[in-house]
């Protein structure tokens, strides 16, 4: 900067105007830079996109182990799957699972976050171990809970004196039992996110409304909840989306049974594709699940966007 302003003490015009460009770098390279940096990542994704497209393509073929030279059958798979009560059973199981698990985890997670936020001595101690269940692989959690649920030697029946006749993975109970495992694994996830949200809040509004004599529930509902809403929504999105495609611990615990009471969409697809080697039918399941996930994701993310903008606006 060779400004020759004299007689004034102001700073010279900042050099920041073209911050990105040391004189020697031409504009096109500067513009291309972010693209160049992203290309490898995009290529990797494109590499995954290929099997994804291939999978979608399978759903319009009659491709299976006994039919290794598939032909195009249009939407036959879709009409067959959509008129199959087993498919709708899987949809029902998946939705019940996702709604119940997400709801319970949100309620418990928010409650635990509020309790931990009180910073009691017990709370400080527990906060450190809060994440432990979350870090146990869901399939290992499935194995542990399977041993604990066992009617003959399971510790749960022993502790609660239920005897060996009470079967946690029976037709009536299995869905609730696998949801309980989900709650065990993922409630800490909700609690951590919400706790982070609460910790990021300013103190002043609470002190002000305390002076005004507001009760804690009023403050929670009118002050805290709106401000941590984006955090709650993020937790809802992650939990609900993951529940729609749940597989690991459910498969280990019940493999979709007894009958089909825990046959979620991914387990149904696994049965069709990998066990029965009917690739087309499995892919049709997955394609429909993907559509469900995609629509839900777009909706929830748009809700989140609005909430985040509102929160940002409220702060500013």
């Amino acid at each position: 900067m060779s400004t020759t302003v004299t007689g004034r003490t102001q700073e010279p015009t900042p050099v920041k105007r073209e911050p990105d460009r040391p004189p020697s770098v031409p504009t096109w390279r500067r513009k291309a830079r972010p693209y160049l940096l992203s290309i490898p990542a995009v290529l990797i994704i494109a590499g995954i996109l290929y099997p994804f497209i291939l999978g979608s393509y399978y759903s319009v073929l009659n491709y299976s182990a006994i039919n290794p030279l598939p032909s195009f059958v249009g939407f036959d798979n879709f009409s067959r799957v959509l008129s199959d009560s087993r498919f709708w059973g899987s949809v029902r199981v998946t939705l019940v699972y996702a709604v119940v698990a997400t709801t319970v985890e949100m309620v418990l997670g928010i409650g635990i976050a509020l309790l931990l936020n009180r910073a009691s001595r017990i709370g400080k101690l527990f906060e450190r171990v809060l994440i432990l269940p979350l870090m146990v692989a869901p399939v290992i959690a499935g194995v542990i809970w399977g041993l604990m649920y066992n009617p003959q030697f399971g510790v749960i029946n022993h502790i609660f004196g239920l005897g060996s006749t009470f079967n946690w993975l029976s037709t009536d109970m299995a869905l609730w039992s696998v949801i309980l495992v989900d709650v065990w694994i993922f409630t800490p996830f909700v609690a951590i996110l919400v706790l982070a949200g609460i910790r990021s809040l300013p103190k002043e509004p609470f002190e002000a409304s305390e002076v005004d004599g507001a009760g804690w529930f009023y403050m929670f509902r009118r002050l805290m909840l709106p401000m941590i809403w984006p955090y709650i929504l993020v937790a809802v999105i992650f939990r609900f989306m993951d529940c729609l495609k749940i597989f690991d611990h459910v498969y280990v615990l019940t493999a979709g049974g007894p009958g089909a009471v825990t046959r979620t969409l991914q387990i149904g697809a696994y049965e069709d594709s990998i066990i029965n080697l009917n690739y087309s039918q499995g892919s049709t399941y997955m394609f429909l699940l993907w559509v469900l996930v995609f629509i839900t994701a777009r909706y929830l993310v748009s809700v989140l966007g609005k909430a985040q903008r509102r929160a940002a606006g409220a702060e500013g």
Partner: protein
Amino acid sequence: MVKELLPGRRRFTAGSVLADIALVAWFAFALFPILWMVLLALKTPAEQTSTYFVFSPTLENFAIVLSDRGTALTSVDFTSTLITSVISCAGAVLVSLVIGVPAAYAAGRWKYRGSNDVMFTILSFRFAPELMVIVPLFVIYHQIGLFDTRVGMIWVLQLVTMPLVVWILRSYFQDLPEDLEQAALLDGYTRRRAFVMVALPLVRPGIAAAALLAFIFAWNNYVFALILTGNEASTVTVAITKFLGGGGQAYYNLTAAAAVIAALPPLILALSIQRYLVRGLSFGAVKA
């Protein structure tokens, strides 16, 4: 009562005692399965179906699981699956870092046309149903010889690690004041040198956290190894379920020992990066 909402102000009241009781109840529920798994892993075969809490513990199960004896008993070579898990997870994280860090930098530093689409596409793989891509990959892997190989596992675990690395690091790069790099540019650094010498060292904690979290997620993955590997490149999560046996003798205490071993790396890593966990778990979707 109002004070309960704010940290650092606390009195002994009926409410606070109830709150502590509720917390203890949750943590009893949350920690019991882990405690039970450890206890079971320390029991002898004769005690494996017992529900005792007091017994004389033995480390025998761990020794069996990790030795040839376990392999002979259960036909699961657990040590080899451990090695596979380490190699394929570390490999996936390494590749994700090499490829993901520049992409995260680009996304965090510049707003370019299509940047949001690229980022959303990367994130959408977090929510894609795994089987959608695995079924075709199952067919492709058989055709090109990647089935049941560690290279095949590294490639597919990218699906887990890449979105994580890119999204977490993007928010770190966004938080980094651009002035620092501009100062370096003014000193005559090239953009690349400014990135390597200035930006990269400053986000090193973020890179470490992202890498460890990505490693944990890859380690805990089950579906990919279940479908895309056989006996050669199987991972620990798949191996554990094999201990439960199908039809034959089940070795519950060995299963528990294997589960403890397999859960240790993620637990230790998670405790070591606890400070960074929220940003990681939410993939930068909320700033924390």
